[in-house]
């Protein structure tokens, strides 16, 4: 099987697992809803200031909900050393990584669309749905960066005895450039400065490519026995 074909097989395996167990995605969705409610108490956004706060609130939710989901995904592999059976199969470590990252990307995107929808409903901010076509490139690229780094670090953190608790400590500092890019470009688009968002989107493309290259290079060392 090919490199991409193997990755897709891993992705399908994760989707099947999620369909049967409903472990990570549902937790992610509930957490984002919960944080939305808490942000409402914390900032009490109204019609005048909601557009200036939206990007920040949303990306904080994406980051934390994402950590929860990606942590679960790799715990599922570490439990009873399930990943070893994948490693002993002819699938290469790189395809395995790519498949896991694609799965994380998909779950994160679902969670983000869900969060955007509820943000529009709960904070009476329908504008964000109308701007979705413009928001999508930055959202996708930022999420891709999240998934690429997150997949790698969730495997790192679950190897320690602290488990997934360690993930935010390792993951958040490294992913700062992506968060900056995501928040800033979304903020610009929401506040009528779409023209300036372009250069941030280019920056996100560069970051994503770098993270992908490095992750593919080092991932095999995380699952070697």
């Amino acid at each position, binding site marked *: 099987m090919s490199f991409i074909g193997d990755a897709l097989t891993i992705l399908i395996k994760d989707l099947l697992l999620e369909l049967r167990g409903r472990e990570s995605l549902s937790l992610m969705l509930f957490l984002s809803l919960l944080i939305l409610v808490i942000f409402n108490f914390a900032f009490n956004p109204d019609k005048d200031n909601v557009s200036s706060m939206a990007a920040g609130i949303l990306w904080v939710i994406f980051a934390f909900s994402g950590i929860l989901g990606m942590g679960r995904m790799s715990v599922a592999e570490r439990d009873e050393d399930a990943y070893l059976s994948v490693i002993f199969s002819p699938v290469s470590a790189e395809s395995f990584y790519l498949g896991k990252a694609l799965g994380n990307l998909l779950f994160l995107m679902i969670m983000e669309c869900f969060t955007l929808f509820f943000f529009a409903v709960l904070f009476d901010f329908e504008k964000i749905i109308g701007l979705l076509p413009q928001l999508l490139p930055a959202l996708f690229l930022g999420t891709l960066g999240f998934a690429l780094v997150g997949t*790698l670090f969730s495997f*790192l*953190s679950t*190897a*320690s*005895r*602290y488990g997934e608790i*360690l993930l935010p*400590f*390792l993951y*958040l*500092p*490294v992913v*700062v*450039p992506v968060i*900056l*890019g995501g928040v*800033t470009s979304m903020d610009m688009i929401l506040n009528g400065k779409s023209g*300036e968002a372009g*250069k*941030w989107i280019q*920056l996100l493309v560069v*970051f994503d490519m*770098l993270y992908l290259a*490095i992750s593919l290079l*080092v991932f095999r*060392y*995380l699952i*070697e026995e």
Partner: protein
Amino acid sequence: MKTDRTITILFFLLLVLIPLDFFLIFRVAPTEKVMGDVQRIFYLHVSLALGALLAFTGVFVSSIIFLWKKKIVWDSVASTCAGIGLLFSTLVLITGSMWARPIWNVWWTWDPRLLTVLILWFIYIGYFLLRGGIADKFKKAQYSAVIGIIGYVDIPLVRYATKWWNSIHPLLSQEGGGLDPVMKKVMLFSLATFAVLTIFLFLFRFRLAGIEERLEILKKKMED
């Protein structure tokens, strides 16, 4: 015991160099016109920053060598460097903050340079958190090498992103360019002193790690 002799020599060298460095900083270097005496902290601040950079580069290089050669000694080198880098970058943040209070009128500002050091600091805290959580020596070495590499590669990205971000929210500041010739000499001396200190700390800590290792082997032998 060649290392032991080098450590002793460096120790006595530093006994001379450090007091001399402080003498030069406080007595010989002229007082800066605008900032006054506070500017003297620069000699330490910049030297510490350079030491930290040196140490983190050491982590990066030895992490790569470890993944390539699989010799555990390179993990000792990497973690020793990481410890020194973490110590120095903590001091960089503290001395910077002490300087910023009288000059910028704030303890902290979200300037790209400050932010980059802070993120760097968080990454290497994570490095040690992970090491503390893995018992198996080889695994510990392997996983922390991955952080040592990614963390280092991430730094230019953080620097670049924060610079862009900051150019949109203009905040601060350009520090002065031309240095007085005496100031320059004192700065160079200070840099050299801290380079020697970094090497000394490295050798000392590395030697200690070796002794700890031997002790562990002996303990195991006694148990058997």
